Each structure stands twice: as structure tokens, then as C-alpha cells.
């Protein structure tokens, strides 16, 4: 199979997918359920996510040259493969809805309050669709190019927050009931479970140094997220409910001269970049899933044709049903989070389990080789096929019988 992206680029995509909502709405949302124990809820969700990642990654490593559709079809059949793709579709379409709504809400508050929904939708969808149309290798190179900037700005923001904000002790922890802590974890699982996006990338990744690169970038993301959450829950131990946009609020105590006044352009730019890079990842999985659900053995088509009807339906649904990040947040904390949790865990376990199923064996092709010496005498026999015959002489093809 043609390898479209390198292992380093895959690692960076995983890094980007682990951020996103976790840097904006998630901390305040966790605080709503579990107060200062929201940090426990976060780490609990992260542990579940990491377990799923390990299962998914092992599945990925065991199938270097197999595409995900071939992997599923040969092990569980086409019908059940389509069901798995349908689950992918549900999971990532909801994440895409939430991403767009959350991104628009963030941009509206942080940059341009008077902007209309249609303006932001146009900009977001145009960028996400364009990045998707560039194909995965160009998109991955783009993300790889911006990665140092994203990483440096994130680290800078966290360090700046630690240097300028008032630090409260995180203890005492486990003050709230376990039900509140678990509630906080499961009702906010919409922000987790992104690892399963690497499964549709199966067979497209160059496996050189894959373990080193992927584990390295996952560790970077874990360290940054852990530091960020420790910073947030320490600074805003009693007022986290007021800080809905976590990444911009942890640096609001930086004393700056009037000429600069606010540094929140830095996290705003960062979050816009992350949202615009997460969108194509989700769109890739959604389009891939839709294609695999609708294709048959006799009928296949260019995946890009899905984009136009998909975008029209998406815009209509966004305008009519899912307008506003708050309504999306409420919806995500009711049924959607549990559905996302169920799908991400189920898909991870399923794919891990079926990776141990032996592929349906194909009929071995048999070759019969006949060797003739100069005297045109057949020197090989069926029973001698197991022996290795060193060919020392070249034989003329054709010639006399």
C-alpha cells in the first residue's frame, strides 16, 4: 500500500487531536460537576482514553500494510464492517458539530462579537474542506510545519500563567462524592476518545520509528495537559465557573503596559489553529466512513463528491438544530457523552479483539516448474519440488524439441 504520511506526522496529528476542547470548555464544565475534584475527573477520563489508545495502537501496529476497510471486511465481513463505520460516522459527526459550534462561540467572544453565524460557518467550513481536499499528506505536512509554533505557544502560556497568577493548594482532594467525580468524567467524555481516528489511517503510514514518534508526541500532550489542568485548578480553585475559556484566562493576570494591554491574542490564535487542524481530521474520518458505508463491490466513486451534499446538510443542521455552543454543550453532557464513551471504548476493544482473528485463508496458488537440461530431458519431478535447485546454466527458450 502507498504510504502517505510519516510516523512523525501521525504523532503530531495525535498530539493535536488530544488538545482542542480540553483547553477551552472542559475545565469549567468539570468544575460544574465536581468542583475542585474536577481534576480527578479529568485524570480518570485521561486514563480511560489512554487504555483505549493502547488497544488501538497495538491494532494499528499489527496491520502495517492493510487498509482499515480490508482489515474489517476480512475479519468480520462487509455487513458488520459497515456497522463499525456507522459508529465512526456517528462519533465523529457529533464531534465535528461540537467543534464548529465551540469554535464559533470562542471566536465570537474572543475576536468579533458582532460577527454573524454565517460568516464564521463560511470561514470554518471553507478552511476545513480545503485542508481535506489537499489530501492527507499535504495536510499532515501543514500540521507538521505549524507544530513548533503550537508547542512553543502552549508551553509559554502555561509558564506565564504559573509565574503571574496566585497559586492555591490543590488539596484537599476527594472532597466530593464519587458519583460527582464519575459524573464529571462521563458527562464530559465528548472531549476525549479521539484516538480512534488513527484506525482509518491504517496502511497509510510509514512505519519507520513509529513507536518512538507516536509515544513521544503522546507524552508531550500528556505533560502539557497535566500542567495546564494543575495550573487551572490551582489558580481558579474557587472561581473556575467564571472562566469558561480556560486557555485565555490563565494569562489574564500578566501585568502589561498599556500599549499591549492584553495577551489573549496569543491563546486565541493558538486555539483557532488547533480547531482548524482538528476539523479536517474529523472530516476525513466522517467522509471515509460515509464512503465505506455507501460503497459496494460493484459501485465505488470519488470520495470528494460526498463533500457537497455533506456540507449542505451540515450547514442546515447547524443553523436549525445545533446553533450555539451552549446548546451543544448541554446536549453533549446528556446523551451524547455516554454515546461517545460507548463508541470509543467499544470500537477500541472490538478492533483489538478482531486483530487476533486469522484472516480468511486464500487458496494458495501453485506453480509447476519444469526444467529441461540441454538434452531436453525433464530433470525435475513433482516430488523434487521441495529441493532447491541451483541454476548454474542458462537454458535456451524455444529451440528443438
Amino acid at each position, binding site marked *: 500500500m502507498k504510504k502517505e504520511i510519516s510516523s512523525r506526522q501521525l504523532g503530531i496529528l495525535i498530539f493535536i487531536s488530544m488538545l482542542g476542547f480540553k483547553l477551552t470548555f472542559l475545565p469549567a464544565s468539570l468544575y460544574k460537576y465536581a468542583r475542585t475534584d474536577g481534576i480527578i475527573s479529568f485524570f480518570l477520563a485521561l486514563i480511560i482514553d489512554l487504555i483505549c489508545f493502547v488497544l488501538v495502537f497495538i491494532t494499528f501496529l499489527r496491520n502495517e500494510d492493510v487498509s482499515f476497510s480490508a482489515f474489517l471486511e476480512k475479519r468480520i465481513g462487509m455487513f458488520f464492517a459497515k456497522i463499525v463505520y456507522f459508529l465512526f460516522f456517528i462519533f465523529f459527526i457529533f464531534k465535528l458539530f461540537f467543534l464548529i459550534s465551540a469554535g464559533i462561540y470562542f471566536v465570537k*467572544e*474572543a475576536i468579533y462579537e458582532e460577527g454573524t453565524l454565517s460568516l464564521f460557518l463560511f470561514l470554518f467550513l*471553507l478552511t476545513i474542506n*480545503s485542508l481535506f481536499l489537499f489530501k492527507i499528506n499535504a495536510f499532515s505536512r501543514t500540521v507538521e510545519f505549524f507544530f513548533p509554533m503550537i508547542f512553543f505557544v502552549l508551553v509559554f502560556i502555561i509558564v506565564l500563567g504559573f509565574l503571574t497568577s*496566585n497559586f492555591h493548594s490543590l*488539596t*484537599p482532594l476527594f472532597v466530593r462524592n464519587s458519583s460527582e467525580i464519575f459524573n464529571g468524567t462521563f458527562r464530559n467524555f465528548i472531549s476525549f476518545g479521539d484516538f480512534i481516528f488513527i484506525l482509518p489511517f491504517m496502511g497509510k503510514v510509514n512505519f519507520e520509528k513509529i513507536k518512538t514518534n507516536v509515544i513521544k508526541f503522546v507524552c508531550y500532550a500528556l505533560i502539557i495537559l497535566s500542567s495546564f489542568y494543575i495550573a487551572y485548578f490551582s489558580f481558579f*480553585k*474557587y*472561581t473556575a465557573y*467564571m*472562566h469558561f*475559556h480556560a486557555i485565555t*484566562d490563565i494569562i*489574564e*493576570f500578566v*501585568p502589561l503596559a*498599556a500599549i499591549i*494591554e*492584553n495577551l489573549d491574542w496569543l491563546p486565541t490564535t493558538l486555539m483557532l489553529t488547533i480547531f482548524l487542524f482538528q476539523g479536517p481530521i474529523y472530516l476525513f474520518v466522517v467522509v471515509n466512513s460515509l464512503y465505506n458505508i455507501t460503497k459496494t463491490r460493484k459501485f465505488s466513486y470519488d470520495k470528494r463528491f460526498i463533500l457537497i451534499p455533506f456540507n449542505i446538510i451540515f450547514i442546515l443542521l447547524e443553523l436549525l438544530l445545533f446553533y450555539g455552543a451552549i446548546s451543544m454543550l448541554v446536549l453533549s453532557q446528556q446523551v451524547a457523552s455516554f454515546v461517545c464513551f460507548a463508541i470509543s471504548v467499544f470500537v477500541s476493544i472490538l478492533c483489538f479483539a478482531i486483530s487476533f482473528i486469522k484472516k480468511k485463508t486464500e487458496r494458495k496458488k501453485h506453480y509447476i516448474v519444469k526444467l529441461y537440461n540441454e538434452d531436453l530431458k525433464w530433470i525435475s519431478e513433482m516430488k523434487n519440488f521441495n529441493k532447491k535447485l541451483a541454476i548454474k546454466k542458462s537454458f535456451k527458450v524455444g529451440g528443438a524439441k
Partner: protein
Amino acid sequence: MKKFFEFSFKRPILVLIFIISAFSIFSCAIKPSQSTNHAILRAVGVDKIGDEYEVSILSFTSSSTQNFSENYTLTSAKGESITQALQLAGDYLGKQIALAHLSTIVVNLQASENLTETLDYFAREYVVNNSTNIICTNTTAKEFLEKTLPLESEDSSNESNIVTHNAKFVTGFDSNIESVYESANKPSRTTFVSYLKLADEGVDLSGENNSASSDSSGGSGNSESGQKKEDKKLENDGSVVVLVKGKNAGILESEDVRNLSWGTPNTKKSNINLQNYSDENLQDATVVLVCQGRRVKKEAYFDGDIPCVKFSLSMQLDVMEILQKNALIKTYIPKTTHFNDKMRRDAKEKIKSDFYTSFEKIKQLNADPFNFYEMLEKKDKNKFKNYIYSLENQEDYMKGIKVVMEINLRKN
């Protein structure tokens, strides 16, 4: 032409860039600058009069000047809520309110009675940072902004700098939106808010570079331009308003604030005056000692069922000034000679008595600025809960806490 269309269709992104650029350039060219239709606010004053709010806004006016000063306009409006009053004030100015550069909110004492309610609008508004300074004043916020307007125009010492100075060197507490809401939510529920007064003595506001205008357009409660009614001055003596659960519990005078600052590691400088001090070198002198390198450690413990907190202070004191009527020693002698054991003992006694006296006042206000609640709860949750439940009124937990101070004066 055909080649142009072929080129364009093969590269649709270029067509898109051209369309977006053409649209953006023309729309940007015809739009007026933001400062024309936005009032950039630097300070807001909130006065609560009965059930109504009067909001005074200090907005930056962009204009070219030769003396590098900034011009501000003060406008007032009344409304049933702060949102309504702000919108009215913006209408009077003929501009939309822009709060992104807000650095100070001034409130009068009536508005500080329930400060979390007063600041609700600003806390919800995304563009207003929670690091915006809060100032309480003895007069109306409108008069305060009017009288301090020249300070803003010179940009040399504005109210924000004063509040930051107080937090670092006087009170040890931040006075901003974040700290007010913290006091409403944390168990110890206390914070201090800077209390700046307009008084007969203080900073002279009649500066030479007073190019600020104090006009306002329309509306009730207008400010007058260029008039000095009474010569009132800005006085920052370090007094604070004590907030308990986001509400004004009382005013702490500067002397008490400075006495309590011994228990705060955050304040940078403190000094003690030993009055009528006599020893083998000095006779009936006033000795001023300055503290260097103070370390404060607080430890909570239970003496049986009585909750106790011990402050352990470690610092170095230097003799900074000696005021003596009948000078026995006229020549200058190095500081270390004077700092003897008697001075050390007297300094310790003075610090302790000052601290305990001021701490009693804090107890009467049911304020807990040192977070005793959290410390005792962390130390022994069950014992502390038993103590709390044993009280007739659980809000009065401070009254039963015993405070002990130990001071270690390091040798120079």
C-alpha cells in the same frame, strides 16, 4: 482569455483568494476607524443610589497632542442596572462601549455593600479581565473619577498603580474582580479591597499638564468641565474595606492593616516605631526599625478541642532612624551598635501587641484573611467539624480560634 479561464479552473484556490481579497479590501476601505464609533473605557465608576445605579465612564479620546498627554472624557448615566446605565452612557457619547482596556472599577460604599452583585455585569463580560482593579471610595465614584482625572491624563500615577502598590507593599491582598469572587466562594470568605479616599490632605491634583477635558454630552449627572469646586485630594493611607462573602463587613484603618501585614509574607516592607525608648545609648528616643527579609510560617494545631494557629516570624531588623530630643550621641554610629537585646525584646513585644490588637478587630468583623478555615480543616477535619458544629453561629468560628505569634529576630 481562454488561457486565463483554463489557468483559473486548474487553480481554484487562486480565484478564491482573489474574490476574498477584493471583497475585504473594498469593505475595509470604506469602514471608519474603530475609535470613531467605539468608546474605549479606562475606568468605570459605579454609584448605588437607592435601587438605582449611576455609572460614570472614563473614556479615552484619541487626538493629536504635542505634549504626549492622553485625553479623557467623563460621562455619567443612571439606570436600574449597570448594563442599562452603560448603554445609556454610550448613547450620550454617541459611541459603543468597548471594555477591553478597562483597568479600574471604582465603587462607592453603598455599592460595596454587596460587591459581587455590583460586579456581576463585569464578571460575565468576556472582554473584561478578572485582573481589573477594584477601588472603594468614601465619596461618590463619579466625584472620585472627576477629581483624579488629571492623574489619568498625565499617566504618571493612576489608580491602578496605587492598587498594585498596595497589594505588594501594604496589604498583601490583590484588590480585583477575581479576589472579590474568591471571597464569595472560598471557605475563609474574606478579602481586602483598596479604600482610596478623597480628603483635604493628600496628593495635589492641580498638575500643570492638565490637558484632560471633563465634558460629557447629555444625560443626568453630568460632570463639569475644568472646575475645581473644593480642593479635594487623593489619599492612599493603606485603608481597606473588608469583604466577607463578597459583602462589605467594615473598614480597616491603615494602622490596623499595617499591623496585620506582619502575618502576611507577601508585603515587601514593614517598619516599627519604638516610642519613648531608653537604654544605655539612648534616652527617651523614637527608634524606627525596618524589617528585612521576612519569612512567615503559619501552623494550625489543636490544643485539646481548641483550634489554634501559630505564626512563626523570622526576620532581620535594621535601625533606620533615631529621633532623640536630648541627644546624648551626636555623631553617627553604625546601625548594628544600637540594635541590642533590649531593642530586640521591645520590638518583639511591640509587633505582637500591635498584631493581636488589630487581629481582635478582624475577629469582631468575622473576617478570616489568613485562611484559618482551610488550614484547620486540612490539619484535622473531624476535630474542626466538631468545633464548627459546637458553635451557636457557625459564621463566628474566628472568635474561638487562639492565635499565637513567635518572632525570631535574626542577628545582623
